[in-house]
C-alpha cells in the first residue's frame, strides 16, 4: 500500500514565489498543498490542514511566532519535530542559503521529505535569480531614461546634436571612470537644482 499523500503547507508573503513553489509541488505529484500568505489566524488554519511539512520563507518576520506555534503540540496535534534531518548539514545550509526553512512532523521518513525540500530550495533560488534579473533590467531601463534626459539637457543648453551630446557623456564617464548612467544622473540632478525649474 503506498503511503498516504503528504499534506504540505507553504507560508510565504510573496504571492509569486508561493505560486512557483506550489506549482513545483503539484508537478511533483503532491496534490495536498495549501498556500498561506497572511499569518493572521494561522493557528486555526494549521490545525485544520494538519500539515506533515511546512515550508516558510526566511524573510517572514513572524517566524518566531510560527515556530513557537509548531512546537506547542496542542496547536497542531502532532509534534512538529524540526528542520529536516539534523545530520544532513549540507541540505540545511542549502535551504538557508536559498532563504527557505522547513518543518517536518516527527517520524516522517527522510527520503519522503528530501525531494520536497530540494524542490523548494531550487525554486527559491530560481525566484531570486529572476528577481535579480528583473531588477537589473529595470535599472538598465531607468539608466536609459536618465541618459535621454541628460542628452536633452545638453542639446538644449549647449546646442549639441544628439550624437554629440551622447559622445560628451561617454567621454566624461570614461575620464571619470564612472558609468554613463551615473554621469547622466549627476547632470540631471544638477540641472534640476540649478536650472530654471522645468515645470517644478
Amino acid at each position, binding site marked *: 500500500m503506498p503511503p498516504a499523500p503528504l499534506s504540505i503547507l507553504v507560508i510565504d508573503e510573496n504571492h509569486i514565489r508561493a505560486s512557483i513553489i506550489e506549482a513545483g509541488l503539484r508537478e511533483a505529484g503532491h496534490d495536498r498543498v495549501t498556500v498561506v500568505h497572511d499569518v493572521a489566524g494561522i493557528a486555526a488554519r494549521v490545525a485544520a490542514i494538519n500539515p506533515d511539512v511546512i515550508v516558510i520563507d*526566511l*524573510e*517572514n*518576520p*513572524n*517566524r*518566531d*511566532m510560527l*515556530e*513557537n*506555534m509548531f*512546537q506547542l503540540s496542542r496547536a497542531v496535534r502532532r509534534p512538529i*519535530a*524540526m*528542520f529536516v534531518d*539534523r545530520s544532513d*548539514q549540507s541540505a*540545511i*545550509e542549502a535551504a*538557508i*542559503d536559498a532563504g527557505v*526553512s522547513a*518543518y517536518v512532523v516527527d517520524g516522517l521518513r527522510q527520503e519522503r521529505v528530501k525531494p520536497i525540500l530540494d524542490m523548494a530550495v531550487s525554486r527559491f533560488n530560481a525566484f531570486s535569480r529572476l528577481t535579480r534579473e528583473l531588477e537589473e533590467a529595470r535599472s538598465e531601463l531607468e539608466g536609459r531614461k536618465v541618459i535621454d534626459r541628460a542628452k536633452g539637457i545638453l542639446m538644449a543648453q549647449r546646442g549639441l546634436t544628439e550624437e554629440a551630446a551622447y559622445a560628451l557623456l561617454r567621454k566624461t564617464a570614461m575620464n571619470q571612470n564612472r558609468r554613463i548612467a551615473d554621469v547622466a544622473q549627476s547632470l540631471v540632478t544638477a540641472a534640476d537644482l540649478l536650472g530654471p525649474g522645468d515645470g517644478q
Partner: protein
Amino acid sequence: MKHQITAGFIPLLDSALLVAAKEKGFANAEGIDLTLVRETSWANIRDRLAVGHFHVAHMLGPMPIACNLGLAPLATPMIVPMALGLGGNAVTVSNALWAEMKAAGALPDLEPKPAGEALRKVVAARRAAGSDRLRFAVVHPHSGHVYELRYWLAACGIDPERDVETVIVPPPLMADALGAGTIDGYCVGEPWNTAAVEAGHGRIATVKAAIWRSSPEKVLGVAARWAEAESEALAALLRALYRAALWCGEPGNRDELAAMLSGVAYVGRPAEWLMPALTGRLRIGTDAEATIEDYFMPLARAATFPWRSHALWFYSQMVRWGQTEHSAGNLATARETYRPDLYRSALKPLGVALPGANSKVEGALKSPTPVGSAGASLTLGPDGFFDGSLFDPDRIDDYIAAQKRDR
C-alpha cells in the same frame, strides 16, 4: 591580517554595542573587519549562526541556553562570553486596559507592585464578567521578556498560564497589534514601547528595570566551534565591544548614538524614539512622563559581564514554565553556556575593573556597592527584585521548589 567577523542583529536599541563597535571604529582598531547583518527573526539569527553565516550574534540571554538544552529546532553549540547590557524592556498595555488598571488603582509611576495589583483586579473582574482572557505578547518563548513578564504577573497573584494568554509577536509589529486590538499588552525592548506611546496606542505600565533592577537582557551569542578555532578573533571582538560599551555609557555620546542607531541599516526609526531608553526619561503615555535612571545600562554595574547567576536564573524560569526538566545535567549545561572566564582573559590587557566571582546572589544589593575586583574599582547593584526575593544560584533547588509550590 584582519579578523573577518560577521554578526547578526535584530533592530533593537540594545544592538548598540555592536553598532558602535563598527561605526566608531573600535572593531577596526582591534584588527577586526566587522560585518553587521540585520535579521527579521530570532529564528533566523539562530539558524544562520548554526550554518556558519554568522560567527556571533546579538541574542536574547536565554536563547543560547535553550539551544544548548536542545529546546530549539536547529542549533549549534553556543557560548556567551559577554552580555550586551542590562535592562531595556518595558511592559506596555493598550489604552483600554490602562483605563481599567487606573480605575483599579494603578499609578503613573511605573512601580510594578501597584500596577500588578491593579491588573490582578482587572483580570478577576473580567473573569467574573465572562470576558476573554487578556492577551500579552512577547518576542520569543526563550526570552528575558517572557520570564520577567511572568515573574511580575505571578508575584502579583496572576497565574501567567491560566489567567492570561501569551503570544509571540515580532518587536516592530507590537505597537500595531496593540493599536488593532489583537493584543492587550506586551513586553518588548526599545524603541517598540515608545513606538506605541508615540502612535497613541498604549501606555507603559512598568519596566524591566523596576521588576528586577540590573537584570540581564541581550548577550553576545557565539558559535562554540568558531570560538574555539578563532579564540584570538573572539578576544579582540570582546575588547572592541567593551570599548563600545565605554563609549555608549558616556552621557555626552547619547545624541550621537541615537542618531547612529536610527539609520536605515540599523533600527530605522527616529532618533527621538531611541533617546528615552538612553536617558531614562520615558514618555509613558500621551500625558505622562517618568524617569528611570537605570532603564538601560550599557556599561555601569558590570553590564557586559556574563554572570553565571544570570544564566541560572533564566534556567530556573525555563523549569518553572515547563520548558525543560530540572536535572543536574541541564543545570550544568545552562551554567557552562555563560563563559566569564573568556570575558576576563580577553579584557585583562585593558586593565579595567572585572568581577572576581562568576556568580552572585541576585537581589542582594539594595544600593550601589563597591566590590573587590582585579585592577580598578567596580560598583555593582542595586539589583533587587521588586518583590524583595533573592535568587541564590547555590540554592537553586530550593528556588525552583519554592516557585513550584507557589503555583
